[in-house]
């Protein structure tokens, strides 16, 4: 390996480093078919980053797709029983949001499915931090909790459409827009104050959690988020840890902790994951699951000295 390192591009180097990291933590490689039945994506369209999927018909007349996502295939393959720890490295095919043209994106990641608890959650989050370290440069891992956000949204409105609008405004950190909409809908003052806090609270986990408690927010979701942050802190992984509720995912698929990773100098997200029990249930699996993907396509934009 040592003798080849110099020959490898940043993307390839990252692939091998991540593969070693995940193997050291007991994640076995999962190799999948290049193609997947289109049905799988049609049924779970909202889980995908984009609606568009590259499709074609095979010799038997079945509609197949070039995989836009890996998680769905792994969930489909999970047969129940013990905790399944898998890692993958696959190309996915998605349209560029700006141009609509399809792009091949190299993606590595891990999934942990089955009867999982706090220990497995902590393990996957620690792996996310370590993954960012492997990519080089200064990384930041930002956490949110879908259960916490949805809980406060439900307290504010019973209307699913309204909650989606509010969530979008929190996602944009659009405090003015959020306040206007709450005023127009006549949402109760305490709920508004908490939603405003979700929009602005950001940064050091201790400070953010503290401000939430001061605002009278409590419950299982907040305690879980706190325990996860403390767990990472105890392992010495707290240096570049943040909480920010603007990163929340889709409630149809995520219900627990969600997280995104960034690298200094790159404009896009390089790591994305979370706890996706609702997706498991949608696909007829009663167990839990958590995982993340690392997007490797931006890595060649990092400057050379950072990668070394």
């Amino acid at each position, binding site marked *: 390996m040592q003798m080849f390192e110099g020959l490898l591009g940043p993307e390839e180097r990252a692939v091998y480093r991540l593969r070693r990291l995940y193997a050291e933590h007991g994640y076995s490689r999962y190799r999948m078919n290049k193609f997947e039945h289109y049905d799988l994506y049609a049924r779970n369209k909202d889980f995908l980053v984009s609606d568009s999927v590259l499709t074609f018909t095979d010799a038997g007349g079945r509609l197949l797709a070039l995989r836009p996502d890996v998680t769905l295939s792994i969930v489909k393959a999970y047969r129940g029983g013990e905790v399944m720890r898998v890692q993958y490295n696959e190309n996915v095919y998605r349209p560029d949001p700006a141009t609509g043209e399809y792009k091949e994106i190299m993606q590595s990641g891990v999934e942990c499915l089955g009867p999982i608890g706090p220990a497995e959650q902590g393990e996957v989050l620690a792996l996310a931090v370590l993954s960012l370290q492997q990519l080089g440069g200064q990384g930041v891992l930002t956490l949110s909790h879908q259960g916490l956000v949805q809980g406060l949204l439900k307290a504010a409105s019973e209307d699913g459409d309204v909650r989606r609008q509010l969530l979008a405004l929190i996602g944009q950190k659009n405090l003015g827009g959020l306040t206007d909409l709450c005023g127009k809908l006549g949402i109760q003052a305490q709920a508004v104050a908490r939603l405003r806090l979700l929009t602005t609270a950001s940064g050091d986990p201790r400070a953010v959690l503290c401000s939430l408690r001061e605002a009278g927010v409590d419950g299982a979701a907040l305690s879980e988020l706190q325990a996860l942050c403390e767990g990472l802190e105890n392992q010495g992984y707290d240096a570049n840890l943040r909480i920010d509720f603007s990163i929340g995912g889709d409630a149809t698929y995520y219900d627990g902790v969600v997280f995104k990773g960034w690298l200094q100098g*790159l404009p896009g997200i390089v790591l994305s994951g979370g706890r996706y029990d609702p997706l498991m249930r949608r696909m007829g699996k009663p167990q839990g699951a958590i995982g993340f993907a690392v997007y490797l396509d931006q890595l060649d934009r990092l400057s050379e000295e950072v990668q070394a």
Partner: protein
Amino acid sequence: MSMQPNQKTLNIALPKGRLGEKAYGLFERAGYGCPDILSGSRKLLFENQEKGVCYFWVKPSDAAIYVARGVADLGVCGKDILMEEAPDVYELLDLGIGRCRMDVAARKPFVDDPSRTLRVATKFPRVARQHYEAAGRDIDVIKLSGSIELAPLLNLSDVIVDIVETGTTLRENGLDSVETLFDISARLIAGKAAFQFKQPAIVKLAEALTAATTERA
């Protein structure tokens, strides 16, 4: 001065023109001035190392691209462009300048005939589509780049979806506002990645701008 935007300073994309100059006025009042910026030179990049800011002038419709792509940490961008392009950025603050609205306008008197596809001329096809889709109205979008008011006069379109400031241009061309889709003003936008790495500096600047904006109002 280096031409490569700095890692430590806040890089800010300002829209060229009247709106950008007004916006810069707010930044200056907030304590983030850059003395030689209004010197009338053709330079596009201005840095004030002491204040930790670097401004550059960009085409107004491009400001959000600079921010979404991470070369600018912050930018000033009209709500019209944010609605049309839906860039992946944070919208931190309404700067309260460049106020106008997005309206549907038509020749008076206007009666919509729901038995026919409505022809809509606009610079904002996404905004127009979203509005009429929500209303369940079938439309034919005609994308134009300027002189939108001409379209209904030449029977190119039934209505227009366009920015209306005072309504003078509409009136002089025998057009009238039919409905307002949303109010427009300039917004302070921030890059999502930039926010993760430079949050304290960004929040401090946004707070100073809030104070400068309120003072003005």
